[in-house]
């Protein structure tokens, strides 16, 4: 949790982006100078299907306030079928987190193609706002790992 001078809550957002579509989409929003908040930190993975639920849980445990996973649009996966597996895995995982009482708006999957720089920026703006509204993630964290 970063707290800036005017004490507005600044959430920490971890974004996993697949190398072929979404990471390129993120690059494109940079190339087009489309702003999104500094709260978003991107981790590059070869395919959205590389994202293990453990990574997401770990992020929350270590203090992330929201985790978003971006991949190629269904049907466009560089590896043919990766994002289809991602979709099932994340649907079930997010449903489970919801079942455990974790706020649903802290997790999200979004399909962003390499051409959708504008969508990437818009998605990140929107998601950051949504997480900001929820406030800090207190339900799913490990207090011992927090920066004091």
């Amino acid at each position, binding site marked *: 949790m970063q707290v800036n001078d005017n004490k507005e809550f600044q959430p920490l957002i971890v974004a996993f982006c697949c190398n072929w579509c979404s*990471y390129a989409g993120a690059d494109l929003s940079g190339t087009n100078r489309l702003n999104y908040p500094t709260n978003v930190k*991107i981790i590059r993975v070869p395919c959205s*299907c590389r994202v293990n639920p453990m990574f997401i849980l770990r992020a929350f445990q270590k203090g992330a306030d929201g985790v978003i996973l971006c991949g190629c649009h269904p049907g466009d996966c560089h590896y*043919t079928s990766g994002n289809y597996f991602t979709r099932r895995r994340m649907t079930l995982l997010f449903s489970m987190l919801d079942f455990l009482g974790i706020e649903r708006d802290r997790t999200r999957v979004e399909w962003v193609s390499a051409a959708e720089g504008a969508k990437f920026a818009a998605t990140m703006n929107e998601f950051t706002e949504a997480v900001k509204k929820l406030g800090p993630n207190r339900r799913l964290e490990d207090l011992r790992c927090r920066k004091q």
Partner: protein
Amino acid sequence: MQRIGVFVCHCGTNIAATVDVKTVAETLGKEPGVVISQDYQYMCSESGQNLVKDAIKEHNLTGIVICSCSPRMHENTFRKAAAAAGLNPYLVEIANIREQCSWIHKEIATATEKAVILGRAAIAKVHLNAPLTAGESPVVKKALVIGGGIAGIQTALDIAEAGFDVDIVEKNPTIGGKMAQIDKTFPTLDCAACILTPKMVEASQNERITIRSFSEVTDVKGFVGNFTVKIKKKARYVDETKCTGCGLCTEKCPMKKVPNEFNMGLDNRSAVYIPFAQAVPKVATIDPNYCMMLKTGKCGVCSKVCSVGAINYKQQDEIIEEKYGAIIVATGFNPISLDKYDEFAYGQSPDVVTSLELERLMNAAGPNGGTLLRPSDKTHPHTIVFVQCVGSRCDDSKGKPYCSKICCMYTAKHAMLIREKYPDTEVYVFYIDVRTPGKNFDEFYRRAVEQYNVHYIKGMVGKVTPKSDGKIDVQASDLLANEQLHINADMVVLAAAIEPDKTARPLATMLTTQMDTNDFFTEAHPKLRPVESATAGIFLSGACQGPKDIPETVAQASAAAAKAIGLLCKNSITCNPCVAHSNELMCNGCSSCEKVCPYGAITYIDKEFRMPDRTTKVRRVASVNPAVCQGCGACTVACPSGAMDLNGFSNSQIMAEVDAICK
């Protein structure tokens, strides 16, 4: 102990204007394991790269982090630089502080803070990077071309020319494809057979080319450089090695009422047949659906008249297995079925024909010997209406959303040929747009309008109604004059949309290549890699990738050949080392990973393990073929025990990045 070097690029002012690069370099310099942290104006420039190389040597670095533009931009540049300085190229990590930081943020304080965090994540990852060596896998110096139309023939000829063996697999009894059925070609109006058949002969005579006609690919295993393909050689009931193509059997065959597919069913052929005079291979084929001998066991005329004893009623399908280094798909196209187009009365009147049927009607080797006659009463047509875009550029489910590309030009050709040969015939062309980009194409179209007085009318035909007097009423709108028209026509020619061959989809599954929603093969990159599929070692030639005319098809066929030759020239290929691998000690052999692998890269072996108590135990464990694996990582998540991991993006590396970001 790790010795990590951090290099922060200014990228002129691209990064330096919003990120305080000095602070980034200074802060990251204090991270554990970092022994040198520098900033520089342009890290990717030669002097920038030298800075990195010198630092690697001077500080004996074990890993480097470049804080710069996107890894998609310069990761390779810095990997090469590292390799040149003696550092394994996979010990390089990039922190993207331009596209994903300086360019999207405005405030220097927060942008700098983020750049530091991105740098830290890269440092955390590089701590866990392992040196990787790209493996090598041998290349079988032989290519397979699937489809023997002009695309396949051209590709095969080019590859053979370069000195490699090529097999052409063609599902029909002869090669030649659609071009063999075409009468004249635009925009030069030279005869298709005159330019195609010499190429067919050339292919059959080239000692490096093997034509496997009347055959289909049934199974593809393996990977780039090393495919194993099963080919089904369908029974033609004629011994190819004996048949001389004399044609006596086709003359004597009593069963003469078989619709002739080569002439689009406009006339008949015999049950034993040679598709056309210039067929390659020129060998007879018996059609088991019509042959009396095969159906009832009574007849045997062809066998009696064949002087070389080539007829063999007992012939069976045969499966051949061959190895190839490269596969070129050239499965081509077909006109769509017009069953759903009742409004154009196709199927109701024999005088409503498709453009490809018109080609046969006008062809000297066609059913009428080259004289254009109405199929219904064999009279000379005086008014012909052409309808464009039948099923092309359609937004409903009946047709195709794309432009079939070739129809505008061949219709101009047809119109011109008819006006040339039969000046008393009026020709109307109804179009949505006339699209004629291409060398000498627009000139060609203008000649049709200006010199040959073909009536081009912008508008769509609403209804075609066959009348009792044998004429056809064509009801249409003229959009420019804004009026309704009725034309009393003798013939109507429909420019049916083209679609990929039906064999393409099952083939794509076998090849694990991608297709678009219209079943055209998807190229690896729409602009920069237009003749390669995304699957390594599979190339695309001709209309299987999208609608194309002959010059484009031939150009793409040669391009695909060039790409395939580039692969076949190599003795071995370097594999991407960022692939999955299984820790056999932890693998359960449960098959979860195999089920999610899109490439069939995972197999299982029974492996013997020495146990701590000195006994041995045999366990089923996963084994990844690094030449086949493309490194998506689907298996790593499917694996419950975490035995499956991915080089370059390992569980611990990604966890380390997460931790660094969330610190």
